């Protein structure tokens, strides 16, 4: 095997060996570097305020109000325009957040440790469906819910986790996949399994019965609760393959609603960007494709690892929700992704595909050569600030990210006389 094949094999082994575990509930202010109330983490590659899409701007204005820095969106806008607010992309500080991906000073985070390699990754709590900040909504009910997550839900989770001990996420993900979740747009089984793990400890540590009822109603009423845990798990695995020399495996895919970014293991922290594409899918009653914002969110970390769209063949129940036609089409998606990946997971198996492992480790060479683009299952945000989720669907990563990355890779590794 050559240098690239060896490096890619190593990357796949690390992805496969990764063992993510929920080890703590922490606050952004306590664990993230240079975090203050004026610093806002967002999804995707770096972006300036003036280039942000509607839902990202809406979420930013809401996040400023959530931190108590002002009362109104107008005041928040003035703070941004005056340069008081610092933006940074979540991936730069070991974090991920779904859709707009807001991570601010006071927010609680899931801390996930990759036991195989010792690195940690963080993700915010899932807020539920509909009018939520991750989809760009920022009304009083959105801020109130986030405050409740910070002040009641997260402290209870922290106490429960301290009592119970860590929750192994790989075991849960393996079980959930066997129960029909692809863990991006379908987390019904994973969320239920997680509640089964945490509920006894939550009941034990929560003295106030009304508080316990609120907490249990919230986590059992949200099928997507596990998504954020899956994302942190996938981030912890993907970070374990960063900076392997000669490696052409993708170490991150993420979108800020304007640009789609791809990172490649052997190319360090460089983002290769292209315009985000529009998801194709189903819209909630009263909304159409005209209302949808281009693809957004850090959640493509799921596909970077090998779940979500890559595992659709093992999750026929999600097919109609994301607007695909048939279970056979879902199998086709997974088989196509196998063609662009280095290997198949030895543990995340899909019973409905005769226990085939999910495709893992996207090789940019194979993407460019075959023309098969990574498929991502995603929620769809309204293109205007403040509205929220309007649908769900399927989207592809743009080819230019991969062709640009391939050209940069060749420039880096080929000797002078071989440059093209």
């Amino acid at each position: 095997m050559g240098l690239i094949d060896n490096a890619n094999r190593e990357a796949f082994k690390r992805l496969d060996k990764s063992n993510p575990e929920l080890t703590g509930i922490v606050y952004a202010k306590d664990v993230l570097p240079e975090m203050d109330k004026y610093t806002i983490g967002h999804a995707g590659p770096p972006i300036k305020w003036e280039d942000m899409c509607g839902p990202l701007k809406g979420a930013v204005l809401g996040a400023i109000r959530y931190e108590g820095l002002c009362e109104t969106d107008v005041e928040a806008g003035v703070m941004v325009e005056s340069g008081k607010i610092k933006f940074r992309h979540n991936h730069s500080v070991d974090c991920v957040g779904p859709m707009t991906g807001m991570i601010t000073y006071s927010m609680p985070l899931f801390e996930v440790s990759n036991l195989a390699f010792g690195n940690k990754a963080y993700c915010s709590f899932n807020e539920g469906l509909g009018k939520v900040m991750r989809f760009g909504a920022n009304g009083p009910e959105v801020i109130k819910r986030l405050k409740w997550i910070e002040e009641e839900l997260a402290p209870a989770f922290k106490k429960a986790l301290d009592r119970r001990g860590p929750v192994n996420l790989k075991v849960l993900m393996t079980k959930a996949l066997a129960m029909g979740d692809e863990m991006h747009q379908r987390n019904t089984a994973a969320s239920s399994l997680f509640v089964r793990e945490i509920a006894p400890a939550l009941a034990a540590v929560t003295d106030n019965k009304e508080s316990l009822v609120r907490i249990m109603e919230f986590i059992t009423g949200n099928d997507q609760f596990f998504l954020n845990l899956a994302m942190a798990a996938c981030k912890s695995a993907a970070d374990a393959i960063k900076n392997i020399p000669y490696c052409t495996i993708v170490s991150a895919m993420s979108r800020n609603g304007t640009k789609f970014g791809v990172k490649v293991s052997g190319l360090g922290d460089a983002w290769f960007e292209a315009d985000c594409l529009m998801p194709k899918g189903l819209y909630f009653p009263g909304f159409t494709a005209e209302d949808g914002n281009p693809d957004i969110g850090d959640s493509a970390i799921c596909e970077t690892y090998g779940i979500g769209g890559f595992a659709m063949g093992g999750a026929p129940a999600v097919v109609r929700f994301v607007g695909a036609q048939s279970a056979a089409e879902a199998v086709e998606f997974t088989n196509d992704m196998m063609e662009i990946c280095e290997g198949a997971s030895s543990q995340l198996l899909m019973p409905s595909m005769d226990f085939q492992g999910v495709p893992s480790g996207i090789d940019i060479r194979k993407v460019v050569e075959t023309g098969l683009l990574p498929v991502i299952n995603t929620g769809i945000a309204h293109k205007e600030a403040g509205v929220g989720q309007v649908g769900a669907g399927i989207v592809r990563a743009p080819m230019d990210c991969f062709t640009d990355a391939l050209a940069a890779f060749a420039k880096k590794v080929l000797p002078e006389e071989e440059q093209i």
Partner: protein
Amino acid sequence: MSKAINMLFSNKVAVVNAGIAAFADASREQGAESVHVEWKPPAAGSERLIAILNKLKKL
């Protein structure tokens, strides 16, 4: 005309179609047995990208 070509025109045609699926459909509509092979030129036919891929294969 060679014997092989003559045989082609005198026997029932069976088609292996590579690339555009519509050609396979058209053959079938005209009564020919047709198998479609999904195929695209590598790197969408970009000579520069194909050259890069070939050079990387040697590393």
